[in-house]
């Protein structure tokens, strides 16, 4: 509240500067567009670059001459950047989106035009499907973060909750012979870390970032230890779950592009969509949400009007643990069907980045997670068309994109005001 007062005061005093953030981004985008047009245009060949809307590379395709496509779309990106200089604040988001997409298409035209003869096609339906699939754990992890951090408990332990969830899902799905038992167990696995986080952060006032990092190491060690002592010795008894069933929605799953992305899913996809809606509505339109946000912004004020601050924090952190644990089951019941040591490979931290990139809101986090999923899916499909870029660098793409996004496009984000500070009554 103080911050906003100061801001308004500054706006009054400060003269209007020409070089706003929007105009700076515009210049950057224009430069990138020109660079793309020149560089990709020069590198591209005249071979056609083709995109199909289906999930396979057969079928009707939109094609464009590689060199022409690279130059035209690069120029389009440059134009979008130039337009930002004129329009300043207006339509900033649209122009930025247009510019980025155009630059991306320019890049893809180059990549596809130099691909071997029959590999010069990208099936967009399949890219959409794998973008969404790869984003699922990130969405669930980020939602867990939303639940915790909106009530002012920092959750860096998403990675640990993923691992516990993945481990419990693999183990109990195999023991019980049912993936549903596995998913329940995954929730409990995440809950265990959530409980440790809650008790240590709320009751014993441990620094929450420190705690999260250490809980990750704890979960990594614990699952690794149990894996070596139990699973590795008898894989068929402890570590052979089956895939979760795929549920296609009849009719809707045939829509090009959207069908494979949204309606050819499984429990994780529909669960994630439901949770995003549920948490969004809950957070902004219900009594629980108002109280949660109040506790996250100003716990003392919430306490004064009778909200039980600590109880609410406990509850939210525990529910968050269950959600993240559910997200962990993705790793052992959908992307593969067995548990491996450290198999989440840092995606819990990426979910945390999605949470911050999405400004602590359920929908924003989901979009950020989808962005990350798209970058990963793009890296996969680029390596399948024999891209001249080494696969190591392609694998860096999602991580670098996140850095650029967090550093360049978001600006300074603002966390819930009380995030990370324990509440001591009195």
């Amino acid at each position, binding site marked *: 509240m103080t911050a906003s007062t100061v801001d308004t005061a500054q706006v009054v005093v400060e003269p209007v500067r020409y070089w706003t953030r929007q105009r700076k981004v515009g210049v950057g985008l224009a430069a990138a567009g020109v660079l793309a047009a020149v560089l990709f245009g020069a590198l591209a060949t005249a071979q056609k670059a083709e995109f199909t809307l289906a999930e396979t590379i057969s079928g009707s395709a939109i094609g464009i001459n590689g060199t022409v496509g690279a130059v035209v779309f690069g120029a389009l990106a440059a134009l979008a950047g130039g337009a930002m200089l004129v329009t300043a604040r207006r339509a900033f988001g649209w122009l930025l989106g247009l510019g980025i997409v155009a630059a991306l298409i320019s890049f893809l035209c180059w990549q596809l035009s130099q691909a071997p003869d029959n590999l010069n096609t990208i099936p967009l339906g399949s890219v959409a499907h794998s973008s969404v699939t790869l984003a699922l754990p990130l969405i669930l992890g980020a939602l867990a973060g939303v639940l915790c951090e909106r009530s002012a408990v920092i959750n860096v332990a998403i990675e640990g909750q993923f691992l516990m969830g993945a481990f419990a899902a693999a183990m109990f799905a195999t023991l019980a012979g049912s993936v549903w038992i596995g998913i329940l167990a995954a929730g409990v696995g995440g809950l265990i870390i959530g409980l440790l986080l809650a008790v240590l952060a709320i009751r*014993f006032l441990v620094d*929450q970032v420190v705690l999260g990092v250490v809980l990750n190491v704890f979960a990594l060690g614990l699952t690794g230890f149990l894996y070596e002592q139990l699973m590795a010795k008898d894989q068929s008894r402890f570590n052979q779950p089956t895939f979760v069933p795929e549920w296609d929605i009849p009719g809707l799953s045939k829509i090009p592009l959207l069908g494979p992305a949204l309606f050819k899913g499984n429990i994780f996809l529909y669960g994630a969509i439901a949770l995003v809606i549920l948490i969004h509505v809950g957070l902004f339109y219900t009594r629980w949400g108002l109280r949660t946000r109040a506790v996250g912004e100003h716990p003392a004020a919430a306490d004064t009007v009778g909200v039980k601050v600590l109880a609410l924090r406990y509850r939210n952190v525990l529910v968050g643990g269950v959600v993240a644990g559910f997200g962990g089951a993705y790793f052992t019941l959908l992307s593969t069907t067995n548990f491996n040591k450290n198999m989440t490979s840092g995606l819990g931290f990426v979910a945390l980045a999605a949470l911050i990139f999405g400004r602590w809101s359920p929908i924003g986090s989901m979009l950020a997670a989808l962005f990350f999923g798209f970058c990963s899916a793009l890296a996969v499909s680029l390596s399948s068309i024999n891209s001249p870029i080494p696969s190591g660098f392609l694998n860096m793409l999602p*991580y670098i994109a996140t850095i650029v996004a*967090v550093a360049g496009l978001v*600006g300074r984000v603002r966390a819930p005001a009380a995030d990370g500070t324990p509440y001591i009554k009195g």
Partner: protein
Amino acid sequence: MTEQTTATAEDLAAAGADQLPPPKTFAGRYLRAMWTANTVTVTVLAVLLALIIGGILIAISDESVRASFSYFFSRPSDFFSLSWDKVSDAYAQLFRGSVVDPAAVQAAANGSGTWERVFFPISETLTYAAPLALTGLAFALAFRGGLFNIGVQGQAIMGAVGAALAGFLLPLPVGIHLVVALVFGAAFGGAYGFVPGFLKARTGAHEVITTIMLNYVALFFLGWLIIQKGIQDPERSDAISKPVDDSAQLTHLLGFLGPSLRVNLGIVVAVLVVAAVAWLLRRSTFGFELRAVGLNPEASRTAGIGVGSTYVLVMTAAGALAGLGGATIVMGTAVSLTGAVIGSVGFDGLLVGLLGRAKPWGVLLAALLFGALQAGGNRMQSFSGISLELVGVIQALIVIFVAAPALVKTVFRLRPAKVSGLGTGMSKGW
């Protein structure tokens, strides 16, 4: 240790005057002080608690112990004796693998064994401790400046890359080569630490996010680099680089006793750097500014300290320390770059830094403890069949308990006293 215990005794005498009269005898005072929640006591009890929980894990993960549990109510003694055997054997191996094996000492004294076997455990402990101390410092220094450097792993990877490149690409004379390779390691790590610091200062991008992402970028970069022509070992088909020249390898300190004693100059480098950082933090202007920014950036800005430039410097320095850590590995033990050349020494560095309470000499002690656990864990794995992963669990538990002194106090019903916790500006959140 004595300093801290006496200090707490005095605190207690002042604070507890209304409760109990201070004991008259020295021994009474000493015991009272020991049972007060001072830093040393909390740390020791944290280690104890972690080992107890680790013991429970060893017991329940053992086949025969679980079998005996099925008839627990008819013959509970079986369950307890089996558990005890299993756990005590595992921890005995842990000790023999990290400090000293009494059997080896006896054999060496008799003349039937070699002194190499006697010094082997301690050599391993020191070997593991050296890079841990450096990566721990990398975390601790940033932590004191109010930054949470999770990028130690990536910075250490880049340091290893820098040192290795200098080690096998530059033809330099003995002596100079070693120094140049270490400098390259520090420079690569420092440059990699500069990036998140700069981003934080200029755009406000949170260092937790950027450093985590940079860890993966470094890992993929390493994976790409070691299969390039001129870097990859031409005699090997797998992903491994050429070995570092002999002139750039850290000398083995106990090499005269036997080739298996790997402890090298790295530990000397680590101790010197710890001393240097301790001096830097305590005595230099930069150290003062760093601590001020860590405690309160707004007040520091008001006082005329450049907060942004301090962030950049802190992260660069932290990166250089982590880079040195990576360099000592590739120049001391690993010799060639591989995908997992530094293992998890960067992530473990976070725990070391926390356990050392972000103080340089504390970090060194923590690194010795973690090095000992690592060395002993290797022996425990091969002699008792307990997975090395248990060491990770124990390390994490120790740090959890150290970070939660209130929890340890509750468990052991300690008398309250000042405990130097992890207090910096971190609890501000994002």
